[in-house]
């Protein structure tokens, strides 16, 4: 019986958290138009979450593409369909690997930066000080960071996809000498605008999810050093799980 009581407590805790996040989301959205009226703040945040993540995104994109080229070639070779490498690689990167891996990397780099920054502001009373100065921290601190995240994520996703496909090409055409012409022509005839849109849409959705979790955890961190640390850990874990769940849902919808 004790076990059931604990389970019920956990379930109730979970439901409460979900509600809390939803309400927080509403507050952030309400402040979003106001935040966008101060483009300097948003630009700064796009820089922090996006431009500073470029190196990791591009590097990982290249390697993911190249690994896909290797594995894909090995797989397709067993059926004698090496020329389908372009198609297979492009579709895999565009629809799945691109958005998902970018989101995970984003959560790890930009998400933790956001959570720890906001958490630190919470721990050093900066957020309370702002409230005392009659400045709403949601508008001044949270909303611009959220906006920066949701702008940066789709862009990062697209960059990842482009470099990923390039990586597939490097391995397939340069290394395995797959015919370049059929590589690209097969890809062109099988990949459509709707596939790219699918990838971009996923990038947007994951961007909203990961940015929201990062600012939520930071804002609600316990005002201690370990509170901030816990907040950053939770950001990565919850972002990753949520991304993969959303990925399944979106893929099922768009299929």
């Amino acid at each position, binding site marked *: 019986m004790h076990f059931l009581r604990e389970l019920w407590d956990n379930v109730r805790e979970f439901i409460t958290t979900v509600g809390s996040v939803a309400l927080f989301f509403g507050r952030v959205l309400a402040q979003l138009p106001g935040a966008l009226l101060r483009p300097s703040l948003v630009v700064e945040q796009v820089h922090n979450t996006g431009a500073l993540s470029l190196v990791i995104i591009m590097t990982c994109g290249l390697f993911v593409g190249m690994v896909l080229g290797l594995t894909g070639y090995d797989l397709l070779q067993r059926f004698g369909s090496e020329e389908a490498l372009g198609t297979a690689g492009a579709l895999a990167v565009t629809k799945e690997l691109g958005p998902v891996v970018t989101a995970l990397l984003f959560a790890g780099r930009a998400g933790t930066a956001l959570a720890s920054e906001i958490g630190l502001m919470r721990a*050093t009373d*900066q957020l*309370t*000080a702002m*409230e*005392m100065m*009659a*400045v709403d921290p949601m508008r001044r601190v949270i909303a611009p960071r959220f906006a920066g995240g949701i702008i940066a994520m789709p862009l990062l996703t697209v960059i990842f996809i482009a470099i990923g496909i390039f990586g597939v090409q490097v391995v397939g055409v340069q290394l395995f000498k797959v015919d370049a012409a059929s590589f690209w022509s097969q890809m062109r005839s099988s990949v459509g605008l709707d596939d790219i849109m699918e990838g971009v849409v996923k990038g947007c959705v994951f961007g909203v999810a990961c940015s929201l979790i990062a600012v939520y955890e930071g804002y609600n961190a316990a005002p201690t050093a370990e509170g901030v640390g816990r907040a950053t850990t939770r950001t990565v874990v919850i972002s990753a799980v949520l991304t993969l769940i959303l990925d399944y849902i979106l893929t099922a919808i768009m299929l």
Partner: protein
Amino acid sequence: MLSNVASRPIDARTPQDSIVEVRDVHYSIGGRAIFSGLNLQIQRGRITAIMGPSGTGKTTLLRLMTGQIKPDSGQVLFDGIDVSNLGTRELYALRRRMGMLFQNGALLTDEDVFENVAFPLREHTNLPEALIRNIVLTKLQSVGLRGAARLMPSELSGGMARRVALARAMATDPEVLIYDEPFTGLDPISMGMIVRLVRQMNYALGITSIVVSHDVEELAILADASYIIAGGKVAASGSFVELKDHDSEIVHQFINGLADGPVAFHYPAPDYYEDLLTG
């Protein structure tokens, strides 16, 4: 030690009314009662000290006064306005009439000193840049840190950070300044600077100051009126002389810094001999 701090001028202009009133406030968190019937009056134009042993809820009181939390019952009035009934916009308008100095300064870490002091001006006014600059430099000058305008908060010492925070709290010329533990963790020199500044700000600008602290020595010199809060209520109030001779045990222990008394030295534990023998 503090002999070169100017003596208190007698100001006959300010009326002896209360700008902040706490009336019969009850507040509890999670079943634990923090305040059970608290009554305070903060006089306009004076420096009022609020003291008490650790954990009596001094910070909670400040949060009640500034409308961050609502009392379970009772009223908190600022200039006659009930703080707990205000909507967000009115609350924010009210907060612009207060300035608050946090324990560790709470400066924005990604802006330099100048931008920190300018922050409230930029957020609430549309003043031209030149005017903002003048105001900021004036405020910094009054706390003696005009030369540090371009330093980052991480480059400041504790005392300097607190002085910058004071300049920031003063930036919009509030009527009431609230100091949350302004002396904690400072060396004697910095402490002397803060004491001097608190007094100067209050009397030169004709504002009201509320100092929450437990530095009895500093407050003895600074405060016009004092409250000691213990057990969820006001344990004693009045001028410092009155408090020193107060007959309440808790006040006596607090003022004189006694190790044992109503606030016990020993945390509740089972009988000592039994604990040792059965261990």
